[in-house]
């Protein structure tokens, strides 16, 4: 059974620049998958296709058997929870509560359910006490967790995180690892933070130049120095995946 299935997805900008070239991949329910690649590989563009914010020139995307089209757009957007790279883009309402409530309210949940969902989403990231705060008064780690809560509140089945570790301090990063490893939702983590992916994702996909260039167990991919070097990916100094037992 597959949860997310993407086949032959291509996308070009109006000026003709090809950003995605026949991308195909499949993710099973409950999987946590890393999407790696250098800057400009097309990762963010790809992610914006998953819930139809950008529409492909060709190819199909389906989620739990439902194919993305104008008719299913709304339902797909509810099922795919996108966490943007900069939480200041994601958190646009005056309070944390109102922000987490934005999704469920739009997806038509009745008001009393919205409140319940906001509470349980914020509790599941451990930040219910921030409900009345203004987003711009939160720390980086708090913002990141609240941003994740904004998509959990709509019962997303696939969580897509774009560069979740950017601008986090080491403790915030560790808390994020702990949080994501406990969430049962299927996750696609877009990043070039290789140790982060190694810690969280048994499987990874490498994307470069708009194509999928590798797909396999994270440990194997990260041990392949030639592969990493060919796609401008680098392990931090002293980090050797062959010496560390994956989780």
């Amino acid at each position, binding site marked *: 059974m597959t949860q997310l299935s993407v086949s032959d997805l291509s996308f070009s900008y109006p000026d003709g620049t090809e950003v995605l070239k026949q991308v195909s991949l499949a993710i099973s329910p409950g999987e946590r998958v890393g999407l790696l690649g250098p800057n400009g590989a097309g990762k963010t563009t790809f992610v914006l296709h998953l819930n139809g914010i950008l529409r492909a020139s060709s190819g199909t995307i389906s989620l739990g058997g439902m194919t993305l089209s104008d008719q299913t757009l709304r339902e797909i*957007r509810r099922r795919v929870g996108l966490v*943007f790279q900069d939480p200041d*883009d*994601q958190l*646009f309402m005056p309070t944390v509560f109102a922000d987490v409530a934005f999704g469920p309210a739009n997806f038509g949940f009745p008001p009393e359910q919205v409140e319940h969902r906001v509470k349980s989403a914020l509790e599941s990231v451990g930040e219910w006490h921030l409900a*009345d705060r203004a987003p711009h008064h939160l720390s980086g780690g708090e913002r990141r967790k609240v941003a994740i809560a904004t998509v959990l509140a709509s019962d997303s089945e696939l969580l897509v995180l774009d560069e979740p570790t950017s601008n986090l301090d080491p403790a915030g990063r560790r808390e994020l690892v702990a949080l994501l490893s406990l969430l049962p939702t299927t996750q696609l983590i877009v990043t070039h933070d290789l140790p982060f992916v190694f810690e969280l994702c048994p499987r990874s996909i490498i994307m470069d130049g708009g194509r999928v260039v590798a797909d396999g167990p994270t440990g194997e991919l990260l041990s392949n120095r030639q592969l990493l070097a060919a796609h401008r990916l680098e392990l931090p100094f002293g980090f050797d995946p062959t010496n560390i037992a994956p989780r």
Partner: protein
Amino acid sequence: MSGGHAHALHFHGHSPIHRLPAAVKLVGLLAFVLAVVATPAGAVWAFSGYTVILMVLLVLSEVPARFFLTRLAIDLPFIAFALLLPFVGEGPRVELGPFAVSAAGLLGAWNLIAKATLSAGASVLLAATTEVPDILAGLSRLRVPAVLVAIASFMIRYLEVVAGEFRRTRIAMAARGYKPRSALDWKPVAVSAGALFIRSFERGERVYQAMLARGYDGNWRTGAHEPITRSQWLAGLLPGIVAATIMLASRLL
């Protein structure tokens, strides 16, 4: 800035005035300000009445007088302008200490100072006792079009973000020795303002994508409002009603 209680104008508290629904306070403020500006300048006793109302509210709100007065300083530019009026005004002169000043200008100055200060005072009191999100919710409850409320809310949300970007740009310029001496040196400032505009525009696009991702379809959905009781309306509008009565009396007498 204290904890999450956002803006510099707000004084955290639990007084009866803090607890009144924002929508009621907004209507009350509007009634009070309208009454003040509709009062003839010569009715000095009416302005004393308004001042008493404002002082009673201030005491009830438990906002310290010092906090209130420093925020009221926003009024100063108007006062400075008003103080010029007696000297530049035309018509018959009256003796005022060593100066002979225009009688009409003097009345105009008094009119401006009294009305601006009372209105600003009432607004400062609203801001001191009401959180920004509550003011926004109050506006939407008063059927202000959702798009306008949303624009105001985005402005408040992103003001600090954009100000932060501007601050970093200025530091980066200063770090590389930029120190404007003449008007000609202002070019980098203009260029960086343009860059800031582009960056904000791009952020707007990303925010819109984030809204779409969470199901935004052009309809702004606001949450349910807690009902406002009749006694809350009455309590909140009382100062406005008293002020309106004073205003009517001042116009009729």
